[in-house]
Every structure is written in C-alpha cells, then in structure tokens.
C-alpha cells in the first residue's frame, strides 16, 4: 500500500490550503461551521448580557409564574418569555442562551485538555519510542477499549463529589485523551521517518526544537479533525452525565441539567417547553460539530475523492 506518500501528500496539500478550499466547497461543512459560529456568538452574547447568579437563582416568590408556557402560545404577550419559564419560574430562553456559553466553555476545556495531554503523550511516545512508547500507548489502548459512557460513569463514581461539574470534565478528559494520543503518535511517526528530521538531528538540533518545529505542525491537521469530531461528543457526554445526575450542580443553566429537570418537572404532563428547548440547542450544536468534523475529514483524506472517478 502506498499510504505514506498519499498522507504526506495530504499534509502538503494542507499547507498550500486546498484543504480550506475543499472544506468550503463542502456545503454540509459550511452549514456546520455556520452553526458553530452562531452558537459561539450566542454564547458570547449571553455571557456578556446575563448574570449567571440571576439565571441560577429561583424566581419563586416573585411575580413571575412558574412553568408558564412560551409567550406566543399562552396568554402572555408574545414577546415575553420566548421559551416559557421553568419550575423555578426562570426564563428558559435566557437560560438556553447561557447554556451555549457553558457547553462551549466546558466542551473547550474538555477537548482542549485532552488534546493537549493527548498530543503531548502521542509525540513523546513517538519520539522516544521503546518502553516509553509502549507504556503510554498500551495504557491508552486499554482506556480506549472501555465503552466511553460506562467508563465515564465509573470514573465519576470514584472522584470526590465536591469537584462538581469538574468531576465529569476530568472523567471525560480521561476518556478522550487516548484518541488524540493515538492519532498524534501515528502522524508524528510518519514525520520522524522523513529523512529531513534525521538530518536535523544530525545537525545537532535539540529535542524540543524538533518537536515544535517539525513534528507539531505536521500533526495539526489530524488533530483538528479529531478535536472537532470529539467536541460534539464531549458536549453530548457532558450533558448525559448531567442528565444522569453526575454533572452540573443545582440551578446551573446547563442544557443537560435543564433537560433532566424539565423531563422530571413536566414533560409528561404536557409542559414540553421545559425540556424541549434545551434539548434542541444541544442537538443543533452537536450536529454542527459533527457536520464540520465530517467535512474536514473528507477534505483532509484525498482517498475519499479519488475513489470516484
């Protein structure tokens, strides 16, 4: 198989940026990118406009009605409470918008940390090889073999509870890191095989220089694809852990928690808006990341296009 040359070709292509061109011709990827940028805008807007404390605290005992249907459905003026209010009389619309901030923030932290750790481990494993490589990568392999959600549940059960949402974040970082380590190690090995790295070593380049100057840039493309795809998964898994009661703390306007409270407090009695809107935001955001990630993978992998003549 001629995998090496082809992949190197792909990387070369990326430098000349036909990658971006490919990506932009992929309509689905563009839709995904638009969704993500839109969510990011919403997130920043919500972060700047709303006060987290106010969104989290109960409005009972004030004049706001709890579980009020969306304004355009009910007796209230259509502009009021666009998505209705929840069981603590909080405005679901504002909470959903703020939820975007939380989802992107914790998603970024989760994926960012696992990427950093994974990249570090992958490169170290590839560069030093031998025992280091084996111990790191084999541990990663075992972690990879566990069913993700079940592994996260088991980990969450061990961590001290006072970590709150961080408990879920740490568990997911452990779940995701191996994926990055594996991808990066593979890519790094290919770069190392190139003679020019050998040449630099011969010229007396120090370890960090080789890592930073030569290996890292060449692994960027697969890392980006992997991060994008895992970003969607991370957001959904964080929500699932919150839904099962192992994630976000009381009152936090996180989509997963709003969804679970909403189902509990009124879905089956017809108050669907409590859970519908947070779920919708969650699904759209995840779809955005999946669309983009898919598109990027197609654009990156030339084999996919060669296949159809």
């Amino acid at each position, binding site marked *: 198989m001629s995998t090496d040359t082809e992949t190197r070709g792909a990387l070369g292509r990326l430098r000349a940026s036909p990658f971006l061109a490919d990506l932009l011709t992929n309509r689905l990827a563009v839709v995904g990118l638009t969704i993500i940028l839109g969510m990011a805008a919403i997130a920043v807007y919500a972060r700047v406009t709303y006060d987290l404390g106010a969104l989290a605290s109960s409005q009972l005992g004030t004049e706001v009605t709890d579980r009020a249907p969306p304004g355009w459905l009910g007796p209230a003026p259509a502009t009021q409470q666009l998505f209705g209010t929840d069981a603590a009389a909080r405005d679901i619309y504002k909470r959903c918008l703020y939820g975007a901030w939380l989802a992107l923030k914790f998603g970024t932290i989760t994926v960012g940390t696992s990427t950093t750790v994974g990249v570090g481990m992958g490169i170290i494993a590839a560069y030093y090889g031998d025992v280091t490589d084996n111990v790191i990568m084999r541990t990663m392999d075992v972690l990879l073999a566990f069913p993700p959600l079940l592994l996260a549940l088991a980990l969450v059960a061990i961590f001290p509870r006072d970590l709150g949402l961080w408990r879920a974040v740490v568990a997911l970082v452990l779940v995701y890191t191996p994926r990055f380590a594996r991808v990066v190690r593979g890519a790094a090995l290919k770069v190392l095989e190139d003679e020019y790295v050998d040449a630099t070593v011969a010229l007396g380049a120090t370890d960090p220089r080789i890592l930073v100057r030569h290996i890292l840039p060449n692994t960027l493309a697969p890392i980006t694809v992997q991060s994008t795809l895992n970003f969607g998964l991370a957001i959904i898994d964080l929500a699932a852990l919150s839904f099962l009661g192992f994630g976000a703390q009381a009152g936090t306007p996180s989509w997963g928690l709003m969804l679970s409270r909403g189902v509990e407090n009124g879905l089956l009695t017809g108050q*669907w808006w409590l859970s519908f809107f947070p*779920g919708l935001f969650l699904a759209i955001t995840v779809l955005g990341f999946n669309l983009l990630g898919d598109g990027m993978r197609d654009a990156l992998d030339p084999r*996919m296009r060669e*296949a159809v003549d």
Partner: protein
Amino acid sequence: MNWTQSLFRLVEPVVPPRFVVKRLLLLVPVLFGVASVVFAILHLAPGDPAIVIAGQRASTEQLEQIRQELGLRRPLWEQYLSFLWDAARFDFGQSYSISRGNSVRSVIADRLPITLELAIYGQAAGILLGIPLGIISAVKQDSLTDHVTRIGALTGISVPIFWSGPLLILLFSTYLDVFPTSGRIDSTLFLPDTWTLFGRELPLTGMITVDTVLLGNTEAFLSAAHHLFLPALVIGVYSTALISRMMRSSMLEVIRQDYIRTARAKGQGAKITLMKHGFRNALIPVVTVIGIQFGTLLGGAVLTETVFGINGMGLTIVTAIGVSDYPVVQGTVLTFALLFTLVNLVVDVTYSYLDPRIQQ
C-alpha cells in the same frame, strides 16, 4: 463466484478450535482484571456500606456490628483476595437494597436478558439498515441519496437519546395514546416460567418477545412488541446511524483500492465488482468496529433504559450507583465487561472467517 457462493464461503468452518479455545481461556485473566478494577473503584468511592444496609434508623453500634460482619475491618489484602475468589465464582453475595436479601446473581439473571433483547434489536437494526445505507451512500457518493443518508446519520448520532426518548413518549404515549408509556407487557398478563417442547419443560429466555413466541401466546407477543417498539426505535436509530457512517467510509476506502479499479478496467459491471470484492473487504473493519461500537451501544442502552424505565442492566447500574448497592454495582460492571469481551471474541472469530490470514 456468485453472490450465494460468497455467502456460503462466509459460513465455511475455517476457524480452528484451538483459536477459539485460547481466546476462551483468556476470559479468566480478563475477569480477574475487571474484578480488580471494580474492587478498586468501590474502595475509592465515597460512602459507607453499613449505613446503606442499616438505613437512617440504625445506631452507631449496629453500624460497627455490620462493618465487622461484612469484613470491612479485615486487612485489605484479605478483603481483596476473598473478593477475587468470590468474583471467580461469580458470587457477589446479596444485594444491599435494590433486591435486598436476594443474590446478585439472581438479579443479573433477571435483568441481563432485558438489556440483551434491547441491544440485539438495536444491533440488528444497525446491521440490517445501517450496512445497506452505508453501501448505497458510498456507491452513490455525493448524490442526493448520499447527502440525505449522511445528514440522517449525523442527526441520528447528534440527537441525544435522553431528549428524543421523552419527546417520543410525550407524542405517542401521552398525546396520541398509541403506545404504552412504560413496562414490557400488559400488567395483567403473566407468563409461566417454562415452555414445553416435545413434552419437555425448558426454561424461558427472559427476552419477552422470544418467550411469547416460544409459548405461542399471540396476545402476549403483541403486547410485548407494542411495549418494546419505542425503546427499540430509539436505540435502533442510534445504532443505524453509527453503523451506516462506518460502513460508508469503509466502503469508500475499499472502492478506491487498486485491484477494484483493475477489475473494473477489465470491463466487468460496476455492481458485480462491488459485490465481489468490495462488500466482503469493506465488512472486515466494519465487523471489528461493530464489536468496539457495541460498547457505545451499551452506553445507549443505559440511557434508553433510564428514559423508558426499563428494568435492565443499564437502569440497574444507574440505580445501584444511586442507592450505593455495592454488590449489585460489582456484579453488573463485571457482567458488562464480560459481555463486551464476549462480543468482541465473537467479532474476532467472525473476523477470522472473513480474513483467514490472521489465524496464523
């Protein structure tokens, strides 16, 4: 070689028994490994089993008595060894609270078939729908069909089960009242514990749609199918989405391979080429990945059972963690691990059917 012939080759007994036996023997260290991890997790987890057992009404002395009785005061290596020994016999003692006083083994015996049934329907839907969809999508890459399938699949994995499930219940159960909201069978229908085949009494499987067929009870079967429809739909969609995505990219990769291009150059029709070379080769990574994805499917089953209130292994583990029923947590985690390993073992064997080179 035509299509039926290649199918026939699939079932040829080409796997040597030694290959299978070696793998079965390896289940022993797997079991001990998982048991050690489970032991570790439960000893690192917060919470005192004594208080779980005795409840809010117990006094300090009673708690101490229970700790003694449970052996929580023995040195840890002793606890560890006796735990391993128990795990080897699949004996986790009695449940603390979910099924207090009953053995964990019987709890698992009751609930495993329920999850298996759900997972099997999910996996079956994934294989029966996902594989053809993936192939079509790959063959007609960038066509409208491809786009629709891909968007469908992407949506399928993007929409959380814990959102779509409740919405389906709301629509079909609460508003339209066409499907029941929960349960596995009408509450007044009870099934016997055995069925008769040629005059011999045999135990039932615990999978209710199978059991009702074995018993020849049409009413019960319809009721069971009616109850199972929504959960199976949710997990089936999820699984179909997962597998069709995999099948598509795997198929694309195979299609582009040189020998296929060569075959095509020789003038054979495109479809025959695909069937002859593509399918079987594309299936190889898919089969392996189906095994690995089975874990994801189990995660999906946990959520599905939670949403639909189905009393299988998934809901059991969530509840058991919730009420700190440690023996049940141990038993279910170990069962999940064994199940996962067994499925991958089956995958491994299937795989060696498909690609005899690897049997060495």
